[in-house]
Every structure is written in C-alpha cells, then in structure tokens.
C-alpha cells in the first residue's frame, strides 16, 4: 500500500501523539486482512505532533469507541481515492464493553455476561462513571479495557 493513497477506506487524522497503538488495539485493526498504516509523531501545525492511521478498507468503525479514546480525531472517509466525508468526533454519552470497572467491590467483578457500561459524567474533564457502582474512570486510565 502506498500510504499516501487510499482507494476506499479511512484516514484517522489528528490522533494525539502516542495514542495510535491504543486505537489500533481498541478497533482490533490487527484482525484485518487489508493494509493498515500507522504514522507516529507526524509533524502538525495545530498539534505539534500527531499520529495518523490509514486503513485501506471501509470496515465498520465504532465511532463511540474512537471518540472515547480520543475525541479530537478526524475521520476522513475515502471512496475511489476521493475524500467524501470528514467526521469530527466527541466523547460519547456512554461506552459499552470498552472499559472494565476497577472497583473491587463492583458487581461487574463477579457477575458473568453483563455489559460493562460507563456513562459520561463530566464532559469537561472527560470523566466516565460505571453504571453500576459509579466509580470514576478518567481518560488517563484508558489501558484498562474489556
């Protein structure tokens, strides 16, 4: 794949530097057969440094997960080598089966087969809370995923 050109797929731009691999893991991009390019620490006028991910396939992408990991990402949708849509993300109101509650007293630690649900409690601080026990989960805690 020429990483400058995508036939049909996505360019995930303006990823906060260092978060590309987190997104790669969350979106399970390692499971794809298509070409995926990760560009780390690219120069950016707006951000100083940024990461970029290019995916050469129009796979379904969970924008809620992406918005949760990095709400500043721009999703560029490419069809026939043309940019057809630019999507700006924001923090989703709730995320399901993305975060695991760290509270050892939470019911999610023992009850099997329930969804792990977190709701956005403070948009400004990016704080989510467990639907069940209300324990906070801050953006910097992200690696603890389902």
């Amino acid at each position, binding site marked *: 794949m020429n990483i400058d050109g995508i036939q049909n797929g996505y360019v995930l731009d303006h990823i906060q530097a260092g978060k590309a691999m987190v997104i790669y893991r969350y979106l399970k991009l390692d499971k794809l057969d298509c070409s995926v390019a990760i560009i780390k620490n690219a120069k950016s006028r707006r951000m100083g440094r940024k990461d970029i991910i290019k995916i050469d396939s129009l796979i379904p992408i969970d924008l809620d997960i992406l918005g949760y990991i990095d709400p500043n990402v721009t999703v560029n949708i490419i069809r026939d080598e043309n940019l057809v849509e630019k999507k700006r993300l924001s923090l989703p109101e709730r995320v399901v089966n993305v975060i695991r509650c760290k*509270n*050892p*007293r*939470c*019911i*999610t*630690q*023992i*009850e*099997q*087969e*329930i969804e792990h649900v977190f709701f956005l*409690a*403070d948009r400004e601080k990016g704080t989510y*809370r*467990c*639907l*069940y*026990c*209300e*324990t*906070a989960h801050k953006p910097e805690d992200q690696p603890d995923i389902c």
Partner: protein
Amino acid sequence: MRHLLDITDCSMEDLDWLMNTADDIIARPGDYATAMSRKKIATLFYEPSTRTRLSFEAAMLELGGSVLGFAEASSSSASKGESISDTVRVVGCYADIIAMRHPREGAPTVAAHFSPVPIINAGDGGHNHPTQTLADLLTIRREKGRLSGLTVGLCGDLQFGRTVHSLINAMSRYPDTRFVLISPEELRIPAYLRDNMVKAGVPFTEVRKLEDVMGTLDILYMTRVQRERFFNEADYVRLKDSYILDPEKMRLARADLCVLHPLPRVNEISHAVDDDPRACYFKQVLYGKYMREALILKLLEAKV
C-alpha cells in the same frame, strides 16, 4: 418510578407522595391493612441484616401481603454460583416485588435490568441505601417540620457509609441545605460526591472535630465505622473509635438538634444519650417501616 435503585430515582413529587402516604399510614393504619392482600415481597439478602430485612417484611405484613426470601447468600442459589440475573428472573415468577441487599456495588442495578418485577435496593456494598434515606427524610420532616434550610452534620465513616451518600444526594435537592462533614482524613466522602456538591453549588465544610461544630447543627447523622467495608483489619481497628457521641458533646448542641443513626450502632453513640429527647434514631426505625410501606404501595401502584 419502576424500581428504586438510587434515591435520585425519586422525583421531588415522588418523595412528597411517599412522605405524605407514610404520614397517612401512621394516622390511619386500618385503611391500609389489606392494600397488598395476595401480594408477595421477596427479600433477597446476600449479606446479613436484621433491621432492614425485618422492616421490609413488617411493612408488607402490615399491608396485608406476605413475604418470602433468604437472609444470607449461603442459603440461596448464589452459593451454587447462580448469577443475579438468573436469580431475579426466577424469583420474579414467585413474588410481586423484590427487596435486595448485596455486598457488591451495583448488584440491584443488574437485577433491575433482568427482573420482571420492581426491584428495591436494600443496600449495595458501600454504594447506596435509598430506603434508609427515605426513613431519614421522613424522620427529619416529622421532627423538624421541614426539609429545607437545615444544617446537616454527617459524622464518622463518610467514605464507605452508603446511607451518608444517599442522604447527601437527597438533601442536596432541598433549598438552603448546608452540610458539615465530620470524619477522619481516611474516611472522607468519595471525590465524586464532593464534585457533585460543588457542581450543584451546595455549601459544605469538612472538619475533623465533632465538638467544634456541635452548636451549629440542626441534624447530626452519626454512622458506624463498618468492619465489613475494610480489606485491612489494622485500618479498621485504628479508625473505629474516631467519634463517640456522649452527653458531654450533647451539651454543646442546640436544644432542637435531631440526632439520627441508621443503626446498628456499636459504640459511636453512648447509651447515656438514648434518653435525651434529641435522640431520634429509634423513631427513625419506626418511620423507616412506614416509608417502606409507602414505597411498596407506590411501586405496585396500589389503589388505596
């Protein structure tokens, strides 16, 4: 309101209805004696409790209904590894309403998701205990004649004390409430509750010494430092005797102070305080039963 999981599930209108109904039950108990005839409550208690379970059972019996359930996890299918979701789906086939106590935080929320009948949270770990709060609110309203403009002191274990968390959430909704939070450093309220109060503009102060604030309080809500909330026995032993209310401290209080405690107490209120007319914690137990009656009537949409 289909379930009661958190006190904020009750609108202000719901709270008024519940308190007015409880007042009416107290005034005219005979009118409610058959209101729940042929209805059953299941009390699913996964951890020991005497008063809360008996209060629910007494409430249902006084309404003419009947009770079933278990008083500890070891006598239920939970000991065989049954999930909460399966338990409530099964019990929902036998009972019209379920009161659940569970040591895990959020367990009643899971139950509500799967249950065919209303779920009442009768205490989930250190998280919430909304029916205790209903008892607290009725006691305050009956003793003080109002729920607004009160200075409420909360003393003891404010970190794991679920009754404290629910009461803060409830009283924050009444105008001109001020909180005085009295606890050792290690047992201060959780950050999220502090954030909620700041966001809602509810005034509060955090202090270490009960004596310093006794004279400013309309309500003093005492709590027990609970052994079962600690993973570390040494921490429990170090903190358990942090605050003890005795006649000497009561002398510093206002003549119309109202002392509440969710009970059981260990030693945080001296027995010498029990005869003080300002000690309202046994009335609180009684009012709790009436509020649970009102709650059952509301959740089962009884026509009285």
